[in-house]
């Protein structure tokens, strides 16, 4: 059964009555409020948004903040009377990062429990629904990652709101090389054995060579390894100038322990957005000299005044800081905001097609310090372009943004469209 994300079951009835009253009140001024389109997930009083996320599985620590961000935004919207008089009902299904569950959840929102728009899935699951997502008309508005299969060839229904790994790598290599000020830096990389890890390692390798440096070694770290001693020993042996890392929180923590074991000290580390997690450098305090994550979303606590509405919404939803003060929360919140904007623009008769037309028109949606502006056009669904470094502050445990997104715009090659890193050079930072 569907559950309103704001209200418990007991509160649902008065809420529904309230919604009906509100709808009938609007009805006097606008006749179209009785519009409903069940196959698009729209009733006279309610809009259904579908979501499939890892709530209890291995990647829950990344996906839970994202899920909470989506829900918190729509909770706030509902608190102000919903969108054009309709309450938004976010239905979240847990997929535990398992492909069959994710596919099942996605298809359920296409026809069975129709949703007006959908968000969620990891990159493997996205690959598995890529063909279907082109064949129906359900707007699929991002996830925290974007699988390559969703973007190529162009998918009219998929709107990416994730920073791509090549984007992150382009800024990461330029910034780290500039920080160290070395003419020929020696760099090591690490990755988990997943698609995005392979992509990360190969792009970083090419960029490092373009920057005049050398890639000393790439280590593939395994989920659930007891230690990364060979990696730790290798770093101690080869003494790279820096480590450019990809992985998951748990693998990165294990790596930190092994680096400490072999007496590695003061290593500069630059990581993909997925490792923007203070528990990683905090695992072994002496090892890291400076820890930067490269991301396109800013955690609410580090975004100044722009983060305040997010913190207020999170607190209203009863969330703890360890859930909401993360970039994934901002990302979920932004995805929900983009959806709401499009649904609102679709007016009193929101359908999937109308929402898509609105999404295609979304131009330079300003998100302040939270992320670069969001722009879609009918033939470009990349949405967000812009990455900046976030420096870990060991005393506060927070990640602080370094500069503005615009400062790093020159580093981006728009790789998913151009498929070439040729326009990148290491002196691209303003």
């Amino acid at each position, binding site marked *: 059964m569907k559950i309103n994300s704001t209200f418990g079951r007991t509160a649902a009835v008065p809420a529904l009555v309230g919604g009906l009253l509100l709808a009938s009140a609007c009805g006097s001024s606008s006749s179209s409020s009785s519009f409903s389109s069940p196959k698009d997930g729209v009733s006279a009083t309610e809009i259904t948004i579908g979501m499939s996320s890892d709530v209890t599985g291995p990647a829950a620590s990344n996906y839970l903040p994202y899920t909470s961000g989506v829900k918190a935004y729509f909770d706030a919207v509902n608190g102000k009377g919903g969108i054009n008089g309709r309450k938004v009902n976010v239905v979240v*299904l847990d997929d535990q990062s398992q492909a069959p569950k994710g*596919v099942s959840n996605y298809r359920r929102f296409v026809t069975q429990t129709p949703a007006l728009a959908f968000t969620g899935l990891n990159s493997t699951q996205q690959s598995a629904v890529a063909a279907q997502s082109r064949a129906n008309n359900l707007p699929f508005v991002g996830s925290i990652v974007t699988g390559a299969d969703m973007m190529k060839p162009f998918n009219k229904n998929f709107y990416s709101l994730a920073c791509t790994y090549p984007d992150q790598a382009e800024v990461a290599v330029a910034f780290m090389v500039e920080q160290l000020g070395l003419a020929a830096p020696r760099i090591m990389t690490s990755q988990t054995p997943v698609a995005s890890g392979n992509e990360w390692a190969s792009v970083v390798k090419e960029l490092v060579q373009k920057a005049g440096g050398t890639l000393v070694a790439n280590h593939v770290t395994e989920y659930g390894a007891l230690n990364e001693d060979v990696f730790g020993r290798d770093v101690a042996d080869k003494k790279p100038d820096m480590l450019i890392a990809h992985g998951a929180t748990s693998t990165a923590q294990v790596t930190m322990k092994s680096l400490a074991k072999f007496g590695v000290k003061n290593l500069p580390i630059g990581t993909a957005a997925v490792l923007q997690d203070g528990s990683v450098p905090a695992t072994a305090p002496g090892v890291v000299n400076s820890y930067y994550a490269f991301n396109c979303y800013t955690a609410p606590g580090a975004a100044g005044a722009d983060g305040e509405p997010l913190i207020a919404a999170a607190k209203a939803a009863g969330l703890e800081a360890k859930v909401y003060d993360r970039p994934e929360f901002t990302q979920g919140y932004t995805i929900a905001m983009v959806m709401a904007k499009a649904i609102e623009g679709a007016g009193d008769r929101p359908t999937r097609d109308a929402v898509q037309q609105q999404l295609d028109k979304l131009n330079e949606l300003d998100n302040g310090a939270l992320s670069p502006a969001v722009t879609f056009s009918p033939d470009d669904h990349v949405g967000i372009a812009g990455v900046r470094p976030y420096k870990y502050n060991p005393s506060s445990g927070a990640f602080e943004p370094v500069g503005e997104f615009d400062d790093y715009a020159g580093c981006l090659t728009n790789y998913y469209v151009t498929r070439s890193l040729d326009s990148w050079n290491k002196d691209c930072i303003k």
Partner: protein
Amino acid sequence: MTASRWVARVRAPAAKVAAGVVLPLLAAGGVWGIQGGWFLHISLLDVNFALITLLAALALHLLTGRAGLISIGSAGFYALGAALGGLFGTRLELPFLAVLALGLAVGALVGAVVGLPSLSLKGLYALLATLAFHFIAVFAYLEYSDTFGYAGIGYPPVSVFGYPIDTDIAWYGLLMAITILVVYAVGSLSRGRQGRVLVAIRDQEFAAAAAGINVGVTKVKVYALSSALTTLAGILYAYYLTTTTVDLFTLDLAIQLIAIIVIGGSSTVAGSVVGVAIWTALPKLIETLSNQAGSGWFYDNKDGFNNVVFGLAIILIIVLRPGGLAEMSMIAARAALVIPRRAPAGRDA
């Protein structure tokens, strides 16, 4: 022993129930699903995954329930199937049915090799040999899938005799046809001489050997057959998902399959069907119940509950009723239906 004779008497009708009642029910349930009468939000897609899982469960039933052998290598054979799909289907562009046939053949061959240690080694060692196969197969899959690029192995669209299998209902038809064939084959194999040979090996290996059964050849055969079937399930799983990556083939998948046949009852076909039905419905039931709770502790931990229930169910069933739920429901059905009808005729109940 009266108990075991009684169980044996229950077993024959159990197979008939599987063929005669449960499968049409599953079919009806599927059609019902298509028409939108949803039960616990189980969709046709879930039914299709359940059918694929049933094939793998039946393969394990053959091995474990019939021949008393044991395997924890099912996920490895899934990985083998997914890799063979990539080789024969994606690379060599062979038609789907040819991919399935070649998959069965290669699966049988690999299965026979994996079964070799069981010739000379007793249970635990043979089991660990299948565990070894799991890790080696998954590593081989990983190396092979890397040659397809970042996003794992993608599979071409499926068509059978010119009919495109591109919707859930078409897949349902295809999978149902395969499942019925397999159930029939496994059922008749179990009833026939081969079935009795397997049971003889399971229950009295030395006596079977003394009675002139070539125990070794039979064991290798059943490993080959079971592995071929699991590889088939792996190919279907891969094509139905359209893409596979290495993270799909976890040891947990193999453990879930063991749980399925133990909970349903490892010695009957009906047991596999019941086990798969519970495996499909239980998470949905827990999800529905937890959604009714709305939020809170139960809601936050629904996945955990699923596995706690599964794990404890395995232990309870093995300790209390090794025949599994299928046998229990047969007993219940007899108690509820058969006995009252017979009682007026004056027979003792």
